[in-house]
């Protein structure tokens, strides 16, 4: 009776819950958001293929800056966190709260590992001489990957809150499963965005001897 009365769970015209629909709409908007950031990065990579110059005037090539093994590892971790998230959502739908907690804790830990790798990467690049101030590449790289990192951090915070909320006994039933599923949608989206960023920001720098963008210099023999 009261379930029907609750405004966000009254039968909807489409049969889709309001919360799920609004999350899909938010993700549509977020697509444009990341699209704009990624475009900015790609435009400037094409314009300035030579990388950046540090404070001492040394020229750096992006390919030699990146540590692709580390980034591949953190990408793998993030992908696996999506797998655990799917398990957590499934557990919640079946009402298995303990299984939900286990899996969501895994997502949180994997998310934190990813963020740790990003913090390490940022510090490492900073010591290599790449700052947000010394080049356009630094600006677009840090702001794009940093914005993605912020999305991951918000997701981790959200899941931590859900995790502890589950101990109050109030997370359950259709509403609880929906709340977890909506968080899952967000998490998967942030993961998919990372796959795109990993491809167009990192991987294509390794296409060919001088990367996809070239170096602006004669091709190395």
């Amino acid at each position, binding site marked *: 009776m*009261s*379930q029907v*009365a*609750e*405004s*966000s769970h*009254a039968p*909807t*015209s*489409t049969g*889709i819950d*309001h919360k799920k*629909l*609004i999350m899909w*709409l*938010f993700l*549509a*908007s*977020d697509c*444009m*958001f990341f*699209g*704009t*950031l990624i475009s*900015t990065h790609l*435009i*400037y990579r094409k*314009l*300035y293929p030579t990388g950046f110059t540090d404070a001492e005037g040394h020229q750096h090539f992006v390919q030699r800056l990146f540590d692709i093994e580390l980034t591949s590892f953190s990408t793998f971790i993030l992908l696996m966190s999506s797998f655990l998230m799917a398990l957590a959502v499934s557990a919640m739908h079946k009402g298995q709260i303990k299984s939900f907690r286990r899996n969501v804790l895994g997502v949180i830990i994997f998310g934190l590992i990813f963020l740790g790798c990003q913090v390490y990467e940022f510090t490492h690049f900073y010591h290599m001489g790449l700052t*947000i*101030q*010394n*080049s*356009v590449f*630094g*600006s*677009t790289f*840090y*702001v794009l990957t940093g*914005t993605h990192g912020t999305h991951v951090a918000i997701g981790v915070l959200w899941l931590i*809150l859900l995790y502890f*909320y589950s101990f109050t006994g*109030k997370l359950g*039933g259709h*509403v609880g499963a929906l709340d977890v599923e909506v968080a899952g949608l967000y998490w998967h989206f942030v993961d998919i965005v990372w796959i795109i960023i990993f491809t167009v920001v990192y991987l294509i720098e390794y296409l060919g001897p001088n990367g996809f963008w070239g170096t602006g210099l004669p091709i190395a023999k």
Partner: protein
Amino acid sequence: MSHDTHHAPVASKLDLAPERSDLGLLRPDRSTGLMDWLTTVDHKKIGILYGAFAMFFFLLGGVEALAIRTQLARPDNDFVTARMYNQLFTMHGTTMIFLGVMPLSAAFFNFLVPLQIGARDVAFPRLNAFSLWTFVAGSFVLNASWLFEFGHLAGWFKDFAWYKSLVYTDFAPANGWFSYAPLSGTFGQADAALHAPRFTGVGTDFWIIGIQILGVASLAASFNFICTIVNMRAKGMTMMRLPVFTWMTLVTSFLIILAFPAITVALIQLMFDRQFGANFFNPSAGGQPILWQHLFWIFGHPEVYILVLPAMGIVSEILPTFSGKSLFGYPIIVFSGAVIGFLGFAVWSHHMFTTGLGAVPTAAFALLTMAIAVPTGVKIFNWLGTIWGGRIRFTPPMVLALGFIWMFMCGGFSGVMHSSAPADSQQQDSYFVIAHFHYVLLGGVLLGLMAGLYFWFPKIFGRMPKASVAYVASGMVILGFNLAFGPMHYLGLAGMPRRTHTYHAGNGWETWNFVATIGAFILGIGVFLAFANLVWTAFKGEKCASDPWDGRTLEWSLPSPVPEYNFARSPIISARDAYIEHKHGGHKIGYENDGGEAGVHMPSQSWMPMLASFGFLIIGMGMPMMAMSVPHAGWMVIAGVGILFTGIWLWALEGPGGYMLKTPTGSASPSPVSATTSTH
């Protein structure tokens, strides 16, 4: 379940026992007066608040416009300084677009959409309150720049170290509403404090964070409205039976959620340039200022349709009502609106014809711009088809709606002139462009919104605005508007440049500038009169019947003012224009067996949305103060983020709550036709 409604149904929220939320805090459900307005989640009250703020900012933006026109009334005038002039035209544009037109459209969305689709509220009532208060926070941040500017002019700050260190002292934004880089950005190398030298003062920082906050408000509102329209339609209210205004709200909301991310990112980039020494638009470090123009107009051109589509929706409701005919070509009107929405994303570079895009992109954007005139023209022909052969009643809303068609067409014609790139390069940055977009935005949008205000005001307050005053005001607005902006076509073609604080005598511009200033004052008085009439009516006006115009859509089937639960019983729809069909046609509105003694579900009121918005206010005030190097301003920003997250967290934890409100059983069906129809 903690979300259960504990109460037995009550006849009024004042009968509720005090209830605590899941957090143990007392819910403000029983509040009255000011507390009620601050914590309300009722879409009608939120709509009224949006409308009140919007009308205030319309008048403020109007005062700024009149200051501009006073300065330009005669050559070599010194009514304001060049510096003040820049701030005036920037704040005029920003205020009118973001604090005037958009919130006034949002007021209509809020008030009308649930009523028109047969719903009792929006999908997320508390999110709706959050949109409102976040808009208020953003508008406060933008206009706080004026307070700093007046403090600067009055010399209040001269003993402070941060003030002495400022290079530029334009405290109100002074870049124009588009804030083109590199003028709005930085140049050279950042110092140790990560600040690169800038071309403009802290006004730009107020503008950046203010627009960012307003964007959050618009995005949240749009997610909510799409959800509401798609998901909360009454039984039988199929998409192709939706009132056109609701359709245009849907298209506008999609435009907002897809266009605003571009400006959000652009603002983040500009903010990083100015406050953290990044190089997105810094030309000395390889940044490309043209990127700002692209990102801005990818947002900015859909924004034009975000402004105009709601007005088109309003006019599409008014013309059929006062012509006594159904809307001519409903599916085509809806389809044209959607096409305008799609094409609106593909024409942004026509704002940039003179930047040297190259022949192919210029030709492509010119063609697409011409193409977008087609669905717009289709709409105009459909409106003409609607009034053709109708029994026209020249009520104030109808006069304003007809004014909309006429003035908007004039703006449309000069718009097609701009779509031709060679012609556009002659008109760029001249008063011709000012004339064009004021015909679209003022002659079009403002007349449309005013028509809507006069049309729905009796529904909102149950009182009828004085028609005599409304006719005089409408006449003054239309006459003054044409006197003010008609001559600008000529001035522009005669070479008078935009955004220049004065001009010398002898260019042949004196007469028409003087005429334009006279027109602007007539227009200003007209708008003030129209608004004053409404405010007076809200409190003292003559009470009127619930359906004074012989309305066509569901909202007219409700009592005026509309009760807080909207529909005592949920309607079941079997035709487009449901209510006129109910009154005069063969399709009666059915009613579900809900409500009555069992009550309808009402959402609980809440302080949390406002608390979260307050966080935005603190962030918004802190960021520009950080840019001014005011001590500890950084902590203010961090505190603001903390308040924002705390607000959202408590909002989630308090639970949606809600209570059951009894509805009168007698009002299950609309009142008899004869009692409500004052005309015919």
